[in-house]
């Protein structure tokens, strides 16, 4: 009984904090999503389900939602493909000073503002920008790359922004794998690929899952990167939601779209949880 009181008193500040910073704003948005108009000034507002209905009435909302999920999946996949080998090398092949220096390089981009990072990408990618100029200098006659304002440009910017999450979470779980385990496998004749896929990947799965979740969720709602790098191709559900809040002042619809997105994200995560559990 005493122990329970101790646990409660230790946990309660964290829960109080969560209630204040997450639950309250979120419930305010939930409240908005059922209103017919923004309750500011002398407007008449009433309860309605219309905002949720709009999503199902107009096909383009779900098309854009699908497009955002596709973007989330692709960015996560690229981050995994690039980040996992990087984390493996950092943990098992590199040591000492080099490791520290490499870690610094990975974390360094985090010290700059996300907006600044994306703006620098626009300078690199745009017509006659840094990338096009250097490639044409090295290989004259390559001509324009036409990367700016395309889907690949958005992918590039997002993968660059979110890669450190994947490297760091994978590194932590790979580093926890006992080297003797790998030596034992090797001594019993397991090949490199067998060790990778039967030992390291399953044992590093918590890190992979954590990294994927950390990347997948924010990328689905991203709006700044698609706007700046995507041009005409930069419309996603995130930019549509942003439009509702800043450009057209339809907070109820923006809130409803956000909650639909949140519900779908939860469904995707639930769908993946049995796979994760089986590996454990």
């Amino acid at each position, binding site marked *: 009984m005493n122990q329970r009181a101790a646990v409660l008193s230790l946990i309660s500040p964290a829960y109080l904090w969560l209630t204040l910073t997450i639950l309250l704003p979120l419930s305010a948005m939930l409240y908005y999503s059922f209103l017919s108009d*923004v309750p*500011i*000034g*002398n*407007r008449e507002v009433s309860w309605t389900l219309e905002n949720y209905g709009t999503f199902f009435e*107009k096909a*383009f909302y779900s*098309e*854009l939602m699908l*497009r955002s999920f596709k973007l989330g999946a692709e960015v996560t996949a690229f981050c995994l493909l690039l980040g996992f080998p990087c984390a493996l090398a950092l943990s098992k092949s590199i040591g000492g000073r080099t490791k520290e220096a490499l870690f610094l390089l990975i974390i360094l981009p985090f010290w700059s503002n996300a907006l600044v990072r994306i703006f620098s990408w626009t300078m690199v990618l*745009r*017509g*006659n*920008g840094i990338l096009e100029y250097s490639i044409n200098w090295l290989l004259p006659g390559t001509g324009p790359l036409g990367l*700016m*304002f395309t*889907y690949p440009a958005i992918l590039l910017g997002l993968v660059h922004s979110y890669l450190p999450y994947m490297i760091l979470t994978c590194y932590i779980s790979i580093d926890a794998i006992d080297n003797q385990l790998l030596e034992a496998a090797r001594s019993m004749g397991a090949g490199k690929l067998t060790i990778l896929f039967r030992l390291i990947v399953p044992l590093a799965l918590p890190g992979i899952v954590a990294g994927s979740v950390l990347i997948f969720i924010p990328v689905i709602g991203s709006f700044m990167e698609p706007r700046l790098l995507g*041009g*005409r*191709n*930069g*419309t996603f559900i995130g930019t*549509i939601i942003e*439009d509702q809040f*800043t*450009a*057209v*002042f*339809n907070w109820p619809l923006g809130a409803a779209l956000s909650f639909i997105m949140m519900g779908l994200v939860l469904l995707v995560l639930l769908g993946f949880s049995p796979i994760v559990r089986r590996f454990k």
Partner: protein
Amino acid sequence: MNFRVLLKFVCFQWLIVLILGSSVISAAEIRVLNWQGYGTDEAWALEMFKARTSIEVVHDYFNSEQEMLTKLRTNPGVYDVVLINSAYTGQAAEEGLIEAIETTGMANVGDLSPSMRNDPKLVTDGKTYGVAWVWGVTSFAVDTGDFQQTPDSIEALWDPKNAGRVGWRDDAVEAVQLAAVALGQDINNPSDMNAIRQKLRALKPQIRTFWSSEDEWNQFFSANEFDLATYWSGSASRSKNTFGLPVEFVLPQEGAIGWLDGLSIPTNAPNRNEAKAFINFMIDPDFYVKWDTEVGAPTSANAKAVSMLPADAFNRTALSDSKKVAKVQFMGPMENALREEIVELWQETKAYFQN
């Protein structure tokens, strides 16, 4: 010796009194809400205004009319002066976001063209909710380096020769109204939304990117991201004069979107009198002539100010050509239902634009 120390001490005290005193005197500070780089925030103008009235001016910006209305709704009692496109002045007044302005004592109001000063969009029941400031048109501008001959039709935006070279403002109302101009429809009450939908969809191969602010327009133009783009007449002359860009604004034969911008005072503005002094300064010929000749501006609502411009100024020549101006359709107030339809149409079109 002691006397000199005392003297120093007294001087030092006086210095502190002066510094504190001056900060109290210059404490009058007004907050202006406007588009960025749109006249009210010119550094030289604010210096000129401060020299005349010792009032400091600080700014906050918006990128769309709806954002401006949102800022007024969510920050009551914060702003002293706000720029409102006259198509929205009635709505803002109806919502109680702005208050009627007592214009007696504002010396320059008398010089405004009567038709603009008394425009029914700005004046309701004899009460002035917005002081007419400048007017201009929205159509498009071209890069003179890419166009030997300046096009005279709005169809240039749809011309396959310009595929992938068009910049377009990401704004639902402006997009739909430009399509309405191209189709010869009434911009304030389009008769055939389906035709407009098709016209906008036809832009898919044309548009390279969207822009949202004048600053962004200039950046994209300098980086050669587009050869022609929708634009505002005043901004085009700024891009030409201040930034030295090879920009030519086009007043198409089909007409264009006209707008009249007014300056208003938000309800319960903390510094009402200072705000009135600022608005009066903004319609002063001294400010306008310098703004238009050295920076670039739309056409002033102050007839006296326009007549003081050099004889070859764009705002005296191109826009005083009555034949061309006759085709300009002025933006009027819009019913909420129509606005919502337009917003949804534009978002659906943007979804259609995705590869």
